[in-house]
């Protein structure tokens, strides 16, 4: 005999103590729990009702507001109860115990959303957006998650797949209806034009995707420079904590020290790196190698040098920041206009560096036009789709049979389909029959 899916419960709000704590219950036993623990036969759906929550022995735990949402018109698609109580540690603990004893179990992380997905309440991209929404720490992250929640990605993928379906319709019409006057025998022209445009779209989205993925996962910023330029001090200043060890001994920082912080609404990973110099010390040499790797992988590089030394601009890439440190130790400075002058030790000029970073990040994120590809899963899916389309175009260029091109287009469509749902052959046939008069 099969059993019904069980009922889950969890604290939906943050860790107590808090003013209010909301417990969420979802599953087939919800109404039974209401009857047992709230001593109410039934609650009016979607209306806040003042209730008493009791334990198994009938003792009062707390009074609060209950909202009952019967399935399928609820977030999970199941019968759901939201119970808002006073947010004390003891109250929430007892409340959860009481509810579990009445026939629920503690939900796994993300289980409510998973149930919503399983009930067809949202597609994968939206389910992912819910997770992002909850995890959002920066404004930029939040804005992105909200758009995705709204279906922007789903719409984009559907549009791309619609374009692929059109291409397939042309290809399949030429394959399956070779004797039809109306079905095009040579479809290379229109198909190759469409594929070219679509590949350009995918590439554009991939390029912007690097940025949107950064918004979600954090921008990587590396502080680079010679030993004892004051990189660790700057990191500590920017992050407002003592994350890196600071001494006056050159080469103190051996490994990468990474700090996660929010700057001007963006999540960033700020790294302090080993000072760049020729060294025979094997540990330090490894540190230098890692620093160079971090520099290459960073979205933004801050070159820091001792104002008493000269600075070699050869290593600077466009967009990098150049900062002269230890302004307190020199009387007069002769630097280029882009160079900022600070004293990391005193905190002089650190605010300007922070402003410069934020303005660089704003520059990177401004004017994004494609919806946001926020996850590696999406980028990989789109990259694979693009590879299939590249091969499809190669086949066309070499004059291979339409079945080769069609196969690659189908595989590309399937890659995009895995991001949201399925590929349906009937979709292609539908497009064929609505475009061509078939009927020998």
């Amino acid at each position, binding site marked *: 005999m099969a059993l019904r899916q069980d009922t889950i419960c969890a604290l939906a709000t943050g860790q107590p103590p808090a003013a209010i704590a909301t417990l969420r219950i979802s599953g087939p036993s919800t109404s039974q729990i209401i009857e047992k623990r709230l001593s109410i036969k039934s609650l009016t759906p979607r209306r806040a009702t003042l209730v008493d929550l009791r334990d198994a022995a009938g003792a009062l735990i707390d009074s609060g507001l209950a909202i009952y949402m019967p399935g399928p018109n609820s977030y999970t698609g199941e019968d759901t109860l939201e119970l808002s109580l006073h947010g004390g540690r003891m109250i929430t603990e007892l409340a959860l115990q009481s509810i579990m004893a009445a026939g629920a179990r503690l939900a796994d992380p993300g289980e409510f959303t998973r149930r919503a997905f399983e*009930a067809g309440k949202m597609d994968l991209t939206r389910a992912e957006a819910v997770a992002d929404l909850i995890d959002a720490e920066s404004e930029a992250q939040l804005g992105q998650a909200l758009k995705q929640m709204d279906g922007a990605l789903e719409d984009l993928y559907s549009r791309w797949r619609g374009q692929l379906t059109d291409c397939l319709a042309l290809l399949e019409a030429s394959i399956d209806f070779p004797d039809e006057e109306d079905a095009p025998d040579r479809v290379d022209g229109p198909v190759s034009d469409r594929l070219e445009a679509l590949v350009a779209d995918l590439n554009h989205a991939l390029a912007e995707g690097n940025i949107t993925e950064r918004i979600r996962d954090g921008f990587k910023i590396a502080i680079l420079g010679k030993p004892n330029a004051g990189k660790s001090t700057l990191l500590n200043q920017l992050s407002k904590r003592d994350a890196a060890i600071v001494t006056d001994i050159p080469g103190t920082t051996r490994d990468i020290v990474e700090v996660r912080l929010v700057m001007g609404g963006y999540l960033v990973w700020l790294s302090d790196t080993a000072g760049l110099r020729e060294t025979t010390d094997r540990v330090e040499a490894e540190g230098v190698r890692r620093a160079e790797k971090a520099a290459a992988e960073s979205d933004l590089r801050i070159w820091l040098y001792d104002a008493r030394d000269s600075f070699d601009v050869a290593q600077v890439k466009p967009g990098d920041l150049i900062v002269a440190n230890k302004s307190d130790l020199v009387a007069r400075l002769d630097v280029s206009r882009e160079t900022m002058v600070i004293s990391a030790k005193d905190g002089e000029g650190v605010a300007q560096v922070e402003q410069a970073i934020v303005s660089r990040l704003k520059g990177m994120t401004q004017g994004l036009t494609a919806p946001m590809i926020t996850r590696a899963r999406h980028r990989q899916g789109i990259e694979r789709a693009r590879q299939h389309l590249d091969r499809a175009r190669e086949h066309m260029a070499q004059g291979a049979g339409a079945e080769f091109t069609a196969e690659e287009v189908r595989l590309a469509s399937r890659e995009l389909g895995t991001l949201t749902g399925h590929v349906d052959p009937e979709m292609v046939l539908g497009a064929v029959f609505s475009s061509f008069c078939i009927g020998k």
Partner: protein
Amino acid sequence: MSTALDFDVIVVGGGHAGCEAASAAARMGARTALITHKIETIGEMSCNPAIGGLGKGHLVREIDALDGLMARVADQAGIQFRMLNRSKGPAVWGPRAQIDRKLYREAMQKEILNHDNLDVIADGVEDVLVKNGIVAGVIGESGSTYKSDAVVITTGTFLKGIIHRGAERIPAGRVGEKPAIGLAERLYALDLPIGRLKTGTPARLNGNTIDWDRLEMQPADDVPIPFSFANSQIHVPQIACGITYTNPEAHAIIAENINQSAVYSGAIAGRGPRYCPSIEDKIHRFADKTRHQIFLEPEGLEDDTVYPNGISTSLPRDVQDAFVRKIEGLENVEILEYGYAIEYDYVDPRALDFGLQVKVLPGLFLAGQINGTTGYEEAGAQGLVAGLNAVRFTRGEDNATFDRGEAYIGVLIDDLITRGVTEPYRMFTSRAEYRLSLRSDNADQRLTPRGIELGLVGPGRAEMFHVKHSELETGRTLMQTATLTPNEAQKRGWKVNQDGQRRSAWDYLAYPTISMTDIESAFPEIAALSGSIKAQLEIEAMYAGYIERQKEDVAALRREEALKLPADLDYAAVGGLTNEVRAKLEQIQPATLGQAGRIEGMTPGALTALLAFVRRRPDRKRVAND
């Protein structure tokens, strides 16, 4: 006469599904009876006199690979063989032939009437005998009782068939044949889901009244390629078909009279096929087109009847005369039989299992047009599957199924029983996900071993297969062991990477610029292989990369197919299913998770829920059994 006759399997109907069903059952050694109204109409081609085409040709080759009849019979009757899509790769070549209807009928009747283990009985079937909820035979119009353990019904469009032509309404299966009333009532009484479809046919023309000299002609291929793997050449004389076009004058007549068309007057409720619209539909839906192509297809070498492919219609007779005579070459044509639309009931095939057995009545199998399909090839393929599984049912064995990864037959059956039909179902190559692997050239390699194992394939065919199979193996080994360095290849004028990597003949053949002829010139031992083996190897090399990928996809498919969903699964107990999805699952009762995934409207979320539920279930079952 009221004698009791005893069989293992009874097949009702002598059309294309019935013939393959009866032959398949008989080949497996079952005592089989084919019961049909008229023995003279066994193997009749009621509509377009052609076999094969895209996707359909694949089905014919697959029926042949399982030692069925259609390909061998068509090879004796084909009067215009053409390999469609020659400009594309062999995976999408479609073997097709115009058929001499009389030759086909005669050849099919010869097969059926001389078949071991097969009795042919001329009788109508009034009812199906049911004992203890299981099929026990049929009752004939003659009053005879025919006992059997399984019955295959292949009665085509006989369920409430109505012919429409203008305002005319004739209850019938086909022109001149009466509908099967008693049997229909039995099927309706089973309370199966029933739908309504329509299809049409054009007027038949007198070929002597066509001005052929003015028409473009389409000849047969210079060297006709037979359907059957057992035949190496075609002996039937080959003819050409004519091509003409409708024109604005003809369109105007049709448009003026469109309200008299049975379809447009609202008399027909059934849905017609999108790929075979009536001329009324074409003019209505594609109003900007000034002409539509018509193929003038002779129905036989000694038959003056011509089938004008492309202008099926349900307009009244006088309108048909009028518009047809506006067409070039047909100005003085005589219509022998007027076109019509036929509307009929079909059984929603989602009521059937993978063996085409009616889920609510064990022992009853349905095949062919009654399941909502169109086409001789689709009918024949279903007949074979139903005949095969009817025998297995009588032996207490599980259904033998073909999956989407091994055969177009598998695609056909899976589509029907999983997705149902909304128009008469026809096969297309685009329905087959693994099209580059499921080719018409390798149908024998894919299916004959299964056929041997299932008992469908006779010793002659099996011997032929083994010989070819071992020749192919030898050829593949040669192709892999014969090697050249890039330097040697370059000396032969082949453009290859000079990377010092020694490559096999197989690798070189995969280059688009290197042909089998190049390979033969480099390797005499390969040149010595037989022509058909070399052709096969060349095709394999051409698709090698894709075939490897599809193998992985098929393996993934089979992993999903291996997750069986029990027939008694309580979908109400699976959390997270919407009512719509649950209703579909309950109706279709998918046999596997893979099949569930192909149900229309199924969401990835619902599948995840189903998977999670089934994964949990065996533990519970064990507990319940303890």
